[in-house]
């Protein structure tokens, strides 16, 4: 235990957002951020990041490969509020407007070692058909005020109720965020 300072444990995460499967879209980029509880604080590394734009691979699987690195260290006193990584994927629509293509979140793995995670992605639906059309036409699709909402339970109930009949995963899924090397909880 470090003298003087309060005891914390550290959680080191490094990995990468590997690739995504968005069969319908191309030229996407992704943004990641972390959501964590009150007892957590990042001590090193980047809390947020925006990747490069990537094109679909030419092969059959048509993966969008980013291989975008993640490297962050947290300190915490309480496992409650374990960090979650929130990914939001954006890309141009038919008219070239940047629109959101998917949101997704997953907890940082709990055990040390190499992990691969596949995160299903979804987008909020427009409230009505008309809005759907206008949003498509104007290139202003419904978006979360804050992508971090997807990692929280609070208020989510209003989205399926009011927005999409179901938050659909039909925008299929981004295979993302794999290979996280997590150094496990170790008291310092």
């Amino acid at each position, binding site marked *: 235990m470090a003298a003087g300072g309060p005891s914390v444990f550290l959680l080191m995460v490094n990995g990468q957002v590997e690739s995504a499967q968005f069969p319908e879209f191309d030229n996407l980029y992704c943004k990641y951020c972390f959501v964590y509880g*009150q007892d957590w604080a990042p001590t090193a590394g980047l809390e947020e990041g925006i990747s490069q734009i990537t094109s679909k691979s030419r092969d059959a699987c048509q993966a969008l490969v980013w291989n975008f690195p993640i490297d962050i260290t947290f300190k915490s*006193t309480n496992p409650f509020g374990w960090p979650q990584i929130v990914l939001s994927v954006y890309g141009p629509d038919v008219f070239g407007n940047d629109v959101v293509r998917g949101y997704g979140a997953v907890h940082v793995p709990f055990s040390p070692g190499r992990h691969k995670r596949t995160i299903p992605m979804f987008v909020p639906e427009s409230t009505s058909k008309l809005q759907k059309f206008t949003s498509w036409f104007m290139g202003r699709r419904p978006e*979360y005020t804050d992508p*971090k909402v997807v990692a929280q339970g609070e208020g989510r109930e*209003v989205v399926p109720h009011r927005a999409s009949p179901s938050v659909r995963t039909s925008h299929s899924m981004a295979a993302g965020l794999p290979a996280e090397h997590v150094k496990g909880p170790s008291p310092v």
Partner: protein
Amino acid sequence: MNPREEKVKIITEEFIENDEDANVGKRKKNSKVQRQLRKKQPPTTGPDKMVSEESHPGNQQEPAQDEPQTRLLSVTARRGPCSLPPIPSASRTGFAEFSMRERMREKLQAARSKAESALLQEIPTPRPRRLRSPPVKELETEFGTESGKEVGSTQQEDDFQSYSRVKFHVSARKIKSKPQVPPGFPSAEEAYNFFTFTFDPEPEEAGEKLKHQDGTDQEEEEGEEEPPAQEGANRMDEEELLHGKDAEDFLLGLDHTADEFLAVRRADYESAHVRLQREKEMLFIPSRLTVPTYKKLPENVQPRFLEDEGLYIGERPEVARTNQNIMENRLLMQEPVRWFGDDGRILALPNPIKPFPSRPPVLTQEQSIKAELETLYKKAVNYVHRSQHMIGSGDPSGNFQLDIDISGLIFTHHPCFSREHVLAAKLAQLYDQYLARHQRNKAKFLTDKLQALRNAVQTGLNPEKPHQSLDMIQKTINEYKSEIRQTRKLRDAEQERDRTLLKTIIKVWKEMKSLREFQRFTNTPLKLVLRKEKVDQKADEEAYEAEIQAEISELLEEHTEEYEQKMEEYRTSYQQWKAWKKAQRAKKKKKKQATEEHPEEETEEPYAEEDPVKPTPPEPTDRAVIEQQVRERAARSRRRPGEPTLLPELSLAGSVTPNDQCPRAEVWRREDVKRRSVHLKVLFNNKQVCRTASRQLGTDFRVHFGQIFNLQIFNWPESLTLQIYETVGHSSSILLAEVFLPIPETTVVTGRAPIEEVEFSSNQHATLDHEGVGSGVPFSFEADGSNQLILMTSGKVSHSVAWAIGENGIPLIPPLSQQNIGFRSALKRADAISSIGTSGVTDMKKLAKWAAESKLDPNDPNNAPLMQLISVATSGESYVPDFFRLEQLQQEFNFVSEEELNRSKRFRLLHLRSQHVPEFRNYKQIPVYDREIMEKVFQDYEKRLQDRNVIETKDHIDTHRAVVAKYLQQVRESVINRFLIAKQHFLLADLVVEEEVPNISILGLNLFKLAEQKRPLRPRRKGRKKVTAQNLSDGDIKLLVNIIRAYDLPVRKPTASKSQQPSRSSRTFREKHAASPDTRSPTHSADYPLGQVLVRPFVEVSFQRTICHTTTAEGPNPSWNEELELPFRAPNGDYSTASLQSVKDVVFINIFDEVLYDVLEDDRERGNGIHTRIERHWLGCVKIPFSTIYFQARIDGTFKIDTPPVLLGYSKEQNMIIERDFDSVRSLSEGSYITLFITIEPQLVPGESVREKFDSQEDEKLLQATEKFQAECALKFPKRQCLTTVIDISGKTVFITRYLKPLNPPQELLNVYPNNPQATAELVARYVSLIPFLPDTVSFAGLCDLWSTSDQFLDLLAGDEEEHAVLLCNYFLFLGKKAWLVMGNAIPEGPTAYVVTWEKSHYLIWNPCSGHFYGQFDTFCPLKNVGCLIGPDNIWFNIQQYDSPLRINFDITKPKLWKSFFSRSLPYPGLSSVQPEELIYQHTDKAVAAELQDSRIEKILKEKIMDWRPRHLTRWNRYCTSTLRHFLPLLESSQGEDVEDDHRAELLKQLGDYRFSGFPLHMPYSEMKPLIDAVYSTGVHNIDVPNVEFALAVYIHPYPKNVLSVWIYVASLIRNR
């Protein structure tokens, strides 16, 4: 041409040529006609018609007309109206008719001779060509249609309606005209013949024609009056009748015509009775009565209730009793037996309906089907094992193998068994039994045992063992003897059984032999050989005899023993009897005496005792009898001596008679057997996993499979089932039976498992037409059919099941622990309760009771674990606690005791945080260890908890205020709790950014925008994006304060000690210098007032202890134009809306004068350096609460600076006013002003008011009216405030006018200026303004505006604008003024309430919080918008174009300007007021006020000032203080006006040597903190001149009801050298 005519003509032609082609050809001439024809084909040809119609390019019809036709499938088309066709020429018609008739007759004559008889019978069968013929008759109608279309396409709709009417009309006429046979027509018979000829057009055609002719005739008779158009329509409608309905009508038409030509007879009448009779023959009406059970069962069979026998019967589906009866009756009529079960009810499967739907809920949204059908890409995944039955999840060694070896199948009975086979099977069975018995040879074993025992007894009797006591020997011998007895009995039974078995075998064999002889062929190779083993006759006999003798002797012994025993018993009982007899005799004697004395007792006697029966002595046993018995038994069960031992041997050595020597029936049987094949299916966990090959049934009814199945399993085996299927020929296989195999023990591995046989039997019923006996049907071996047998198909499967062994010799068995899981999980699946059960403690009694009440079927396998549990529990074997524990494992998981957990500081902290306790709501990084948590963390919280109960008087000087504060706190808490839940609800807009639904205006705007310039030269201001408060953190929010300029600041006065009267010239001179102040001003010392600038003000903004200030400007009207940025921190880092609303911080904008003093001691150094000291003197301040900024989003305007009434050393430039010609303005504005712009960056979305409806005691109608009124107002002027109902302090909706009512102000205020109403009014306003201000939004973060009544307000001594305004308005009403409440917007308060009074000729606007009043046309009036006026009996909404008080007319009597709530349509109902009748004022205790003044406030403030100056010595000038203290009451009495000059003079007189700066502060008193803050904000303490002295005086003027006016006089003094 007339349509009619046309039609007739065509028909004629048709007849002549009798060639349809020609007909068609003809039609082709007229494309229209043809089209019509097609159209008129029966409705079934609809589509074709459509096609043909459209394929006509030369169609004259407009496409527009075509369309509806197509849609309505030509119905509308036919509905076309009729127009005037060309006038028919009657003569031509006549001719046409005539010629046609002629030809027809000719034809008829010719045809009749040929085919008369046949045709009469034959129904004209339609030929393919015929299908085309009906159109002929429709021709004419089509014409009508066509013409209608051509002429009056517009008419169509009208006709659509008239259509039905016409139709009725026509049909009526049709009926009428039917019987008429017009003259000149062929006779009925003729016509009939004619119409029945096959080559003819269809009969109805003619019928039509006839009818039409009728019509024609009629019409002709009617003359020209009836327009032909109408006629055409009729025609057409008739056609429609035919078409529109359908072919049935068509046929009806035919019938009509037939009737016309047939002889009319009386209708055959069948009496109802006869018909019923006939129906009875034909029909069966199942009765509803219950069918007696015996009918449903085979004869002489008692109903058998399986349920009563303890077998499980599933719940039957619910069927109404009557329906069931009907069905049963019906079934009985057909095949009685098959459908009924043993219990006489219809066979039924258990109710398959589950009480809960298992289908996932269907998403009922718009894209229902499409979304459902959408293909989703899913990556292929490995099979995920079902539920938790899986073994070794993810374990690579999780492949376990079960080897199932199915070696064969033997039928012990089969429908194809011949009689011989039956016997053979029986024999084989018996032989097997025999062999088994023989192997065990129990009889021999028992015989040996008997022998041994006898020997033992023999030896035991020998007295050779002296060491054993006699008793012991006797005892063992007795035991031996009893054992001998037992063994002998067992041996006898065994021997007897052996013997009977042997006998049966022989008997069956004999039967078989006789059967073989009888039927003269053999079916089975079975052969029984009895081997006789010769025995030595003599030895055998001896042994036999010896055995018998031994037995006899033993028996004798037993009997004698028994006899002796009995004798003994007899003797004792005899003795007893004797004694009794004696006693009896004695009694009798006594009785004789007694009867004389007590005759009544006699009767009781006989009942008292019963006579013991005289015992009979036992008979001694007779040896002869015993011997007889023994011998009899031996003869029965034992081989006779000398008789050879019979050893049966069954062999298959016999030969089966070949087919050709067998009778036919037997051959059939054998062939049938050959056709049959059998296969097995292996079911693992109720899933078929494999299937054996299908093998033919052998003649010996054995099937050899010899197949081994290796089952690789993942799931724990729960069941293993074999299903036996039989296939006959090529038909489908029938399930014969199911056999359940036990799951092998884990020790059973392949190679070690024995072949086992499992018996099966089937309830199949089969009757065969050959020698086969069938199964389930009675048959007999006897010729006369007696002694019937019923055999069911049965057999044995030999198999072995074992666990496989892996490559390295490890058996592939799931680990033992898995088995438990499997078991547990199986249990779990069966019932949730059982999974709680067993290990956990549950309330068994209740469970059992529940089970009994809910009538659980104990036989239902689903309930088995539960029932077992209950039976165990209720049997009382286990301890049943009388409590129920939900989480029975909780105890095990409690790693620490409850007390310890509560003691843990960390846990407590976490707990409090999760409860959203304000102090901890945003606590971050709760330490890991208890030891790291400081005790002081909880101090505040604990203190608060304590304070809740203890009234603390430290901060609140008088107890009353403490009570109020506590009460307020409680109300606040309860209200907050109430709204906390409501606030949790998010709206979609909070989470999702979405474009609004575009309406026309937005769309139009957007379109307009398209044309807009991309980069306009003069950009327009755009609204900032609003930010919801939830995702903010520290440092995100900034407060922007734009200080623009100030007007009319006080200017310094030259130190009066010099008393230089400033001259006019000097002023101008000074004025000049003011223009360029930088050059000279700092260098001037205080001694040179001429060179000094008037004032060098700067603005300091302090917020949340952050201080920013502007640069220094010059002069009394400075312009800064600077933007200050202050960070904002929410309390506890909580940026939620609720928290932001409750921020109580205030932005202080202080204006200071920067004064430079030269401190240079030595004049010689003046050239080398500048030594000045900066002092700053407070000039005034503006306070703006943060909540106002938060709700207003921005504050923009000019504000009056709150300057102290007396500012020592400063004065207003009164002299210069005249000079500058400012009169008009200055006269209005007394005081200084500052122009500000304040906003928050980024813009925060203020929370919306609680979306909740409050209950109300108001009349429902009134509430509706208010809603309506508000909606109307909002529609017209959405931005103007309109208030009709408010929420009172208990949370109820109250109509607003109920708050207004004249209320008495304190009497002492009224007494001050009895003759000056204006002064009184001002005094009252001042009184009201002295009540502390506490915004609702702060106290009630739930955003609802709570209105308290005036007495509540005075009790609480806190409230916001509404309460102040209401109270002020009520006072004014009491004073007899015309006063209204004004709802509007003011600066800086935002939406607020003011009071407007009518003062004879003008209106006055009163600010209730400050007590100031303004004229209506005062430009500095803070009230900027007026929404509505509220009086005690009405509400007026401002519907004028403008809402600024400067520009509106306050005359509420004008309905064009003010929309009143209560009007003629809704008169004022006379609402009672919520206010009290009268306000009662207590006099404030002056002593308390004095104490507060001296000892508390003054002391505390002095301490504070000293605290704020930690680096300097703070000296207090007592003399000055006492002087100041004298001034303060004067200030109070004059309300801070017009005292300045006297004041200054006084001071100067007393403190001549001091440079003096100071000011009195005036505040309403609520708490200490605002006072301290106010003093702090003036920055008096900031002077760090070494020889500075301070003076501080406090004066409290008490008003009634504890309203205190506080004056604080602060001054700093610097002694002039």
